[in-house]
């Protein structure tokens, strides 16, 4: 069976979803084909825009918090970073990112996922590892825990009985040790029990809280919340998060927030589920399947052959957007060789095309260092059209967005979802011929 669309987006993480949502503004018929959720579902749930390229990890430096300034600095210093590539294409990435953020802010608000208001400064949010990180935009439940706003306020880290993934004692101690002397906190911890939760991960705890536990938890906390800010583990509802928040507020627990998450992530899942709702609301077709092959001729992509629910189907489109992610989602593979599996586009690390190269040449000795291998991806021109081995445009009606792009580490360099939103927004705009 043939399927005809104006624009086909491959991948439905943040970049693919933003591209499809922006493209649908033009009134065109849009389809998203995906293998499953994007790695957005595994993110902290907050949207990192740009960390200070000169900043020291873990130190709350005053001048590191202006994310637009950081975007400009990254674009100036790192020629392969997508912010720099867009700047070379004549865009102002800092200003365009602000525009893209307003767009996604409205889209998510419209499907019941309120975000903390966008400001020019990075928020400083607690994570489950006993540290904190700078992030540009967060879900409302997370953003209320901005440590800058809580300076000097008694803050209680709430642990949950039988939930080892969130060691509240340790987190409170680590925060007091690292930043307590600078006027943050003081931090203490308290353990609560969620009825119906006998142990497991944050997923099971969130399910228990949503199904029956929240009222009891709220009544327990009403007594201790006066004059204190409470930081919950990242469990404040997966599918009905607004009900959890409302119940807490109605019971008198007013000043609370939720920690960032590490995979497996309830806030990440919540963010991806909200993107899915936004796509459905805007009439974008979501097809679960995988692209098998593509027909390219005369520098144009004509159609895709896809396997959708076990059936082979031909998908025709005027324009196409590739947003299949990096290693986690399979947009870039490293199985003996580096490869991009959908169009067999060349993979680059920096300026160097890589294929059968030895992986160890691109890994550092320090486990948590900025490994070049994590910055592998496809290269694009300033309009986000992917380049072939001769560094010419592979197909003039194909654009790429998100972590498949070379030059940045979507999980480690503090600009992960910011790049996804900006490049998704631009790709959607370019593919739909909009403005």
């Amino acid at each position: 069976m043939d399927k005809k669309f104006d624009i086909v987006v491959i991948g439905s993480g943040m970049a693919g979803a933003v591209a499809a949502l922006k493209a649908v503004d033009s009134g065109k018929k849009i389809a998203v084909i995906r293998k499953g959720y994007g790695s957005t579902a595994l993110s902290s749930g907050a949207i990192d825009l740009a960390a200070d390229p000169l900043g020291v990890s873990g130190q709350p430096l005053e001048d590191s918090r202006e994310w637009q300034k950081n975007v400009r600095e990254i674009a100036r210093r790192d020629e392969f970073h997508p912010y720099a590539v867009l700047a070379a294409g004549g865009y102002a990435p800092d200003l365009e990112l602000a525009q893209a953020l307003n767009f996604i802010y409205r889209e998510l608000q419209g499907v019941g996922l309120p975000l903390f208001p966008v400001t020019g400064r990075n928020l400083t949010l607690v994570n489950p590892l006993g540290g904190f990180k700078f992030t540009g935009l967060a879900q409302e439940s997370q953003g209320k825990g901005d440590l800058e706003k809580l300076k000097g306020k008694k803050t209680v880290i709430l642990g949950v009985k039988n939930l080892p993934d969130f060691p509240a004692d340790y987190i409170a101690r680590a925060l007091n040790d690292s930043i307590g002397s600078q006027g943050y906190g003081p931090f203490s911890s308290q353990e609560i029990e969620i009825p119906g939760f006998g142990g497991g991960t944050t997923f099971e705890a969130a399910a228990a809280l949503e199904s029956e536990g929240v009222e009891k938890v709220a009544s327990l906390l009403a007594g201790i919340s006066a004059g204190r800010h409470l930081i919950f583990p990242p469990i404040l509802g997966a599918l009905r998060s607004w009900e959890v928040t409302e119940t807490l507020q109605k019971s008198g627990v007013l000043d609370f927030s939720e920690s960032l998450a590490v995979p497996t992530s309830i806030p990440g899942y919540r963010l991806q589920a909200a993107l899915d709702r936004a796509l459905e609301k805007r009439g974008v077709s979501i097809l679960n399947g995988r692209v098998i092959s593509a027909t390219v001729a005369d520098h144009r992509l004509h159609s895709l052959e896809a396997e959708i629910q076990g059936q082979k189907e031909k998908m025709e489109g005027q324009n196409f957007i590739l947003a299949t992610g990096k290693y986690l989602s399979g947009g870039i593979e490293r199985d003996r060789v580096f490869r991009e599996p959908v169009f067999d586009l060349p993979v680059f690390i920096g300026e160097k095309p890589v294929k059968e190269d030895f992986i160890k040449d691109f890994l550092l000795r320090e486990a948590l260092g900025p490994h070049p291998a994590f910055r592998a991806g496809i290269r694009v021109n300033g309009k986000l059209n992917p380049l072939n081995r001769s560094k010419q445009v592979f197909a003039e009606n194909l654009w790429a967005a998100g972590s498949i792009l070379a030059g940045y580490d979507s999980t480690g360099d503090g600009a992960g979802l910011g790049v996804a939103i900006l490049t998704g927004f631009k790709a959607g705009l370019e593919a739909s011929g909009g403005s």
Partner: protein
Amino acid sequence: MKKQIHAIINLGVHFALHIIQLIFRFLGKKAPGMKRFRENYGAEGLSPLSRANRENLFILSGCIGCGLCRMTLNLHPAAGATLSDPESLSICLTRSLPDVQAARDSLKLSPASLAGASYCPRGISIAGVYDFLQTADKERV
């Protein structure tokens, strides 16, 4: 010349043995190689896999252990099960095939969870995991 005749006789004898072997196999005798493999490795749970399941194994081992399926598919681990989720399978597939059998006994899937297999970031079908567990076990000794 003498060596050539010897080689031709040798080849002829082995060809005849091969034909006899084929006849026995055709009549229902199992290949001795497979029998020996099973005798040697059956106790450790290392079972031969069909071509289809070898291909499945490659796809299923793409699991990154993110746990999304556990959340979204509402899986029901059996009481006391140690392997209660598909991502555990990725570990035993690469390190301990006997645990595949344990996974089969542990992983209980409802029809609803089989239907909703569209969440995996790697596109691994939960129904595929389930089928693999069932058929891989049947392929055992």
